[in-house]
């Protein structure tokens, strides 16, 4: 028998984790290139691209450190911190990531509709130093906007990286060390290659079509993440009930809580042994072989919320106010514009709309321009 130099599960784990990350990173990079490309505003473009890569790098570094620490703790003290807390942090990271992707996705799509010069200016505005001291929440929001291009890749890499460490740790005992390097490199390379293809595709397609397509894709991932996060919380509760790691019993009876099961097939488990193709299916579409009421409802409500959100955004864009709400009267306008000037943010729909609600924009803007 030939020496085992290629651990297939490890390849699939690396591939799927790298795939999710590279989808997000390549969409962001393609977006930046198309909107702020070197010919538009090279300085800001460079800075934002740097942000993306900083996010990737720092996320990688931290997850390597934590992963290394966990493995060290495992070998030194025999403490398996992975399986005890894995479900919790998977769930928490999943929800955070899905919320960030959702907000970013809407914001990118919205920004793409602006004319080129406005986008550049907006980017410059984000980069500019805040002259006003707002409330803490406002400043936090501004900060998030400014570093959004950093935050999203950072959180994504952190989550995927830790997941990869845990998953690989879970299957590592059944493979010799020699079977790892090639599988890891191939997995990462395959994931990165897909990301590069997306990036290239994004640069050649029209910005709007690319962004519509990639936003759909991002939202599929986010919906899966959201649903899976709920699933992880439920799995954590189930593990507490049965007093152990239920995945010990594979995909069969006992691996899930029958009372909460919507469907369960004793195969196609995206978690076991790297999950193979089902793991990829899970990474992109949120597939699970054991759906619960929570995860199915979560998935559907996520999409319903997204749809309602986009309808409301469109309605406001068209009518200037939310459905069933009259446009605000003059007296309130003065105070509204006062306060909203402290809030404002392109990624914050409500603030954006509050300003459009004020029916005297041109003059105010003019005044402010002079002030500025």
């Amino acid at each position, binding site marked *: 028998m030939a020496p085992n130099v290629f651990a297939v599960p490890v390849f699939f784990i690396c591939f799927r984790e790298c795939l999710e990350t590279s989808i997000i990173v390549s969409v962001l990079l393609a977006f930046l290139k198309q909107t702020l490309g070197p010919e538009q505003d090279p300085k800001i473009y460079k800075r934002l691209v740097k942000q993306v890569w900083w996010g990737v790098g720092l996320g990688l570094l931290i997850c390597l450190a934590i992963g290394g620490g966990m493995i060290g703790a495992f070998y030194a003290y025999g403490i398996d911190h992975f399986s005890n807390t894995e479900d919790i942090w998977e769930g928490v990271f999943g929800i955070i990531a899905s919320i960030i992707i959702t907000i970013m996705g809407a914001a990118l*799509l919205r920004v793409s*509709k602006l004319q080129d010069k406005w986008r550049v200016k907006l980017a410059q505005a984000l980069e500019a130093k805040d002259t006003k001291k707002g409330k803490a929440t406002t400043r936090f929001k501004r900060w998030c906007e400014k570093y959004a291009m950093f935050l999203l890749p950072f959180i994504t890499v952190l989550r995927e990286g830790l997941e990869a460490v845990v998953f690989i740790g879970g299957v590592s005992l059944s493979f010799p060390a020699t079977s790892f390097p090639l599988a890891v490199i191939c997995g990462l390379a395959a994931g990165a290659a897909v990301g590069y293809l997306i990036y290239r595709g994004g640069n050649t397609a029209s910005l709007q079509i690319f962004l519509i397509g990639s936003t759909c894709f991002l939202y599929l991932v986010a919906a899966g993440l959201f649903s899976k996060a709920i699933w992880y919380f439920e799995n954590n509760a189930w593990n507490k009930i*049965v007093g152990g790691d239920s995945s010990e019993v594979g995909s069969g009876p006992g691996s899930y809580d029958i009372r909460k099961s919507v469907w369960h097939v004793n195969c196609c488990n995206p978690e076991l042994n790297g999950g193979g193709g089902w793991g990829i299916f899970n990474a992109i*579409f949120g597939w699970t072989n054991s759906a619960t009421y929570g995860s199915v409802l979560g998935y559907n409500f996520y*999409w319903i919320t997204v749809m309602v959100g*986009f309808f409301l955004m469109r309605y406001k864009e068209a009518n200037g106010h939310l459905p069933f709400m009259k446009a605000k009267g003059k007296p309130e306008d003065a105070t509204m514009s006062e306060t909203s000037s402290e809030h404002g943010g392109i990624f914050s729909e409500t603030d954006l709309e509050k300003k459009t609600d004020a029916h005297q*924009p041109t003059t105010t803007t003019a005044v402010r321009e002079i002030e500025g």
Partner: protein
Amino acid sequence: MALSLSNFLLPLLMLLQHGLVANAATVTFDWNITWVTTNPDGMADRPTIGINGQWPLPALNLTKGDRVIVNAYNGLGNQSTSLHFHGMFQNGTNEMDGPVGVNQCGIPPGSTMVYNFTLDQSGTYWYHSHQRGQYPDGLRGTLVINDPENPYAGEFDEEVTFSLSDWYHDQMPGLMKEFISYKNPTGAEPVPNSALMNDTQNFTVSIEPGKTYLFHVINYGAFAGQYFWIEDHTMEIVEVDGVFTEKAAADMIYLTTAQRVSFLLTAKNSSSTNFAMVGSMDTDLFDTIPSTLNPNVTGWLVYDKSSDLPTPALVDEFDPYDDFNLVPTDGMELYENVDYQVQLDLKMDNLGDGANYAFFNDVSYVSPKVPTLYTVMTSGASASSVGIYGSNTNAFVLGKDEVIEIVLNNDDAGKHPFHLHGHNFQAVVRSDEDAGFYDADNHTAFPAMPMRRDTFMVRPNGNFVVRFKADNPGVWLFHCHIEWHMDSGLVATMIEAPLELQKTLTIPQNHFDVCKAAGVPTTGNAAGNTEDLLDLSGENKSPAPLPAGFTARGIVALVFSCVSAFLGMAVISWYGAAPLRSKTVIAAKRRISQAGVVVEDK
């Protein structure tokens, strides 16, 4: 606790009571079955089922030919009960066998059932409740039947009887609820809290140098098999489960739950030291071994009361005597020609309620509404048709005097001790571990004079074959004697010569009174239907199986999820494609201006 004289006094008293008659006597017991508080391992007080306010239960020492009458009054108040005299053939008295839902109704609190039967056998037995999951709460005791024609009569000076047992600090109903639960999908059996010898942990036997003793050892635990050995002494096995065997020397014996052994032990000629005897629970059976668990229990052969009771030495490995090799003294030869083969494939699996159950041939036993014996007695000519006994009882109808072969294939990684009521059987084949299913064309040679007993263990993922003659009309259970598995359904019902049974058996009115008090029907098929006996509608059934894959619910959920994903993407596309209104541009402008970036509006 010294081996109390009561073990010997009791039969002595009985003999006195009955005028020292050597021939058949009638022995009557008035038993009030009640709760008492006990603490046999010194670790926890717990409510335990006692008799007449006593626990450990009376050690019965009777004589072959005796008629036994037990007036069993249920004084528990909160549970039904029953009594089964384990190993008794009950030939002609099938209704006295004791399993609830099979041969009788559970005795409800406040009722009395009279058990009345003759002891036609001799050897080592025990009695216990055959109400679901009850005997490990204390209702089990030893029964030794002396035989004036014992082939080893005269070879021993004294007899010693004691039990081995596992012990739980919690009561069975609660443990059973946790065991058969969606919370325990792997079917991990509750692990005992300690091991007992003679229902204590400081059991001693006074030994006189030079004498020979006949030891009767009974494992009446709920779950754990036990290894048993006596330091520096060899045991000569002479009887298992009431069957006398040629002498077989053993250093270590393995007793599953419900198995018994008698052995001759010759005391050292002189000794000033005492010797440990150890019962060690077979931890292979345990899912987890708590750090607090001591799986061993030690007793002592006391030659010299003034000497120390030594701590037993550790053993390197467990290498017990293989009971398959024993040879019965009566020389009964192998039943060569099998008339009917019963194949039972054992597996553990989960049902639709998420809990783990045990199965024979994919059926997990559930008690019928009408005790099976009563169905036999009230079904006329239909009694021969297996269909009336229910779809969850694993019923087999056996013809009178047929030679029956039971092939048991263990598709589970655990050891299982199987017990057949009403018979002992010839152990024809027992495979090694992991041998898989029995292959009739490829097996070890059958022994010419097979070992017989009434409880026999199958090895993990192995098989065994046993044979017996259906010469005892009655309804007899065949089941795993691990109480957890018994209650999760590892039971089959042998209905032996039902038409013959109808002709010969009379069930006393007292038994029907008990059923009436318990509100249990006594006529009709397994479902209690008396018109159409093949109509099983309304019968007790096990939970539905787990759905094999996508159910309607799952498909609807998957379709809904796909539809909402596509709708969602459609909305995103629609929004992304729609032009931006001037008002939004203005808002963006303002955001820019607030940041102080100069906008050159062309």
